[in-house]
């Protein structure tokens, strides 16, 4: 197992290298010029050129890529063109809100969606099943920003139960921290709940028709025990896979949710950097997201061994 983990971690190196090359090349050929943004309308072409030169943007592709790669290998993600701050500092400032949002969303989604899917499978064809599936269709169909606006209107503007925007760091207490995260997590989690609930239901239906379930019922095992101890454990592998794949969904959804609720996270940092063509920031954040995704995949693969003893690495 340990050797497998080491092998998988080493395998991330070529993956990250390909991501780095791809991101750098894409930004190089994409239209846009940060020097023009900085210089503004009044600047002459010569002024723009001087700013471009001072930022090193006039150097050839290979020179720029080589310099960036060398910095990355030394653990330096570079400096933002606009703010003059190290990219690592900017990521550090923004990572807590995004991780908080993702963790709360994940906990919320899993704790709601898995029981929903189990119950829907157990009560297949009844109104409960139809209600759960109806909710799932709704969750898939309504965009995150619409859910966000509706939640903000009802719970912030009308009821004044929760703040409409912003983020409070965890260090200032659990109460203020969670208060700011409830609405965004519910909004972001709506799609995720729908996805997990549907997969849980489908997998559970398949498992519930297995012979060993019939045997358990014949032996008089209780309904709850059958559902959660016997069936759910065997249905867990596809569910865990979907949860892992859904992390990418969360990263994408966080961009919209962070904008709607003014959460200063990595999603907004990325969008802002893209709009301004702040290349070092875009490259740094994309590399980080790629790394997180690779680690999540590894964690999911390792989690399989917990649910299915037949899987060994």
């Amino acid at each position, binding site marked *: 197992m340990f050797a497998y983990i080491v092998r998988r971690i080493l395998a991330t190196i070529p993956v990250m290298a390909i991501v780095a090359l791809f991101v750098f090349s894409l930004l190089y050929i994409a*239209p*846009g*010029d940060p020097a*023009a*943004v*900085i*210089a*503004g*309308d*009044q*600047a*002459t*072409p010569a*002024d*723009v050129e*001087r*700013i471009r030169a*001072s930022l090193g943007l006039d150097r050839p592709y290979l020179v720029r890529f080589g310099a960036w790669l060398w910095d990355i290998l030394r653990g330096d993600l570079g400096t*933002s063109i*606009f*703010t*003059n*701050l190290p990219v690592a500092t*900017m990521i550090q*400032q*923004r990572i807590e809100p995004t991780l908080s949002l993702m963790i709360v969303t994940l906990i919320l989604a899993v704790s709601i969606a898995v029981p929903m899917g189990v119950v829907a499978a157990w009560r297949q064809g009844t109104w409960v099943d139809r209600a759960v599936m109806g909710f799932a269709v709704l969750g898939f169909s309504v965009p995150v920003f619409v859910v966000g*606006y509706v939640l*903000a*209107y009802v719970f*912030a*503007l009308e*009821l*004044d*139960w*929760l*703040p*409409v*925007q*912003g983020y409070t760091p965890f260090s*200032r*207490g*659990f*109460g*203020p921290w*969670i*208060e700011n995260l409830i609405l965004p997590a519910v909004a972001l989690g709506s799609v995720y709940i729908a996805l997990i609930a549907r997969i849980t239901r489908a997998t559970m239906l398949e498992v519930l028709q297995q012979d060993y379930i019939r045997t358990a019922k014949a032996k008089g095992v209780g309904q709850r025990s059958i559902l959660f101890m016997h069936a759910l454990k065997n249905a867990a592998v596809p569910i865990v896979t979907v949860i892992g794949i859904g992390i990418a969904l969360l990263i994408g959804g966080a961009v919209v949710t962070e*904008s*709607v*609720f*003014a959460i*200063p996270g990595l999603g*907004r*940092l990325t969008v*802002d950097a*893209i*709009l*301004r*063509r*702040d290349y070092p920031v875009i490259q740094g954040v994309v590399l980080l997201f790629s790394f997180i995704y690779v680690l999540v995949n590894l964690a999911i693969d390792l989690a399989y061994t917990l649910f299915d003893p037949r899987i060994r690495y």
Partner: protein
Amino acid sequence: MIGRRGLMAATAAGVAMPSVVGAQGGAARTLRVIPQANLTSLDPVWTTAVVTRNNAFMIYDQICAQDGKGEIRPQMAEGWEMSDDRLSVTFTLRSGLVFHDGERVTARDCVASIDRWSKRDPFMQVLQPSVAEVAALDDRRFRFRLHRPVPLLLAALGQTQFPCFIMPERIARTDAFTQVREAVGSGPFKFLPNEWNPGQRSVWAKHDGYVPRQEAVDGLAGGRVPRIDRVEWTVITDPATSANAMMLGEQDYWEYPLHDLLGLMRRNRDLVVQQRLMDGTYGIARFNTLHPPFNNPAIRRAVAMAVDQRDYLTAVAGSDPAGWGACEGVFTCDTPMANEAGSEILKTRNIDRAKAALAAAGYNGERVVLIAPGDYPQINTLSMVTADLLKRLGMNLELVAADWGTLIQRRTSKEPVERGGWSIIHTTSSGQSLTLPVTHLFLRANGPNAWFGWPDDSEIERLRAEWVAAGDAAEHRRIAEALNRRAMETMHYLPLGYYWQPSVWRRNVTGVFRAPATVFWNMGKA
């Protein structure tokens, strides 16, 4: 019904409450602002972004500044003295001026700051050939020595568009094309770098050592009194969220509310919606004069005949005429140079006559590429109205949707449309910069060095140079009329009128005053 505080008391851990209470106490001495954009750079010389300039007004001070009537008044300067031959101007600084790092402001700081600023400011670059030297005479006095009289010197030094802010000499020595690494000024508020989270929050604290002028505040002139302990900018990119934050009292001041949401804001009794900026925002459509069809002035004029500014302004700022105004000349309306000499063509407003003029001009179905920036709501709206107009004129239009970052790169292309070029772009500009021929970006017609579209017209350039050299107001006025007439003949761009950009603040915010820029001195909270 239980509100948020009640719910918090019921559900949150008790230990969390002190921080909430503390935050409320601080809120009374903190002005919480939603700025018009994200503050990404602090150096007002390195970048011309308006948000950076607004930040700079808090951190830095100016030698002289514009009052409510547009006159230039002393600010850091006690006064100035012009020699009888008008070939030297000596400025004397007020006593007691100190930077945020505790150092005294000296004339050497002013000289270094003027030197760096004049390398980037287009206005000062026009005057620079007439300046022989700027030198410190002692700690409090510095002198401009001139080759010839420069009547516009004070206007350049005190301008709001690209203000001359004073930094410590050690910082002002930085190359004008390189961003400074410290934000240390002598203005009424000091920047708190440790609390800066670009894209989320920027914070300034009152500069206790600031010595304001004794006069009452008047535009950007007069006493810049910091009446609040902290100013906090929180970037909220979503207008609906900004509106909600204002209505719930989570923020105190919203600089650029979306016009669509103004009605909602006005109906809320806790909010004040008012025009604070003294100038409107002017829209323009720029032709690329290098390539067909708009290398033909008759075709440009034909399109102008179809333009009705009210269509544009209604689309951008709504149907209430109080929110906008037609301005059918090239200079900012209601300013000394404003005139409509030769502007009759913009009053045609007739599609059929425009179509006839287009045919007579020899339009032959050449492709017209219009680039619209989807992430810039106002400019995008102006672009859509022009697109509709060109379609109704029967032109062969290709509408390209792009983001602003792409547009500002593509507009630099001098290639024909078949090779990635463009035909029409739109932008907006503060009325400030269209007030004088010397700062008017779109009027310039110096070919390759002109603004994008690169018009070339020696008559406009000659008139502009004549205006700079002219000494009296009547002469300025006469030349401005000639410029307007010539601009209507060449029609290098279409003036699309102006709209007002009101701001919103909570009713407990006090001391709000009209000014040419968004500034936060003199403002407090009841």
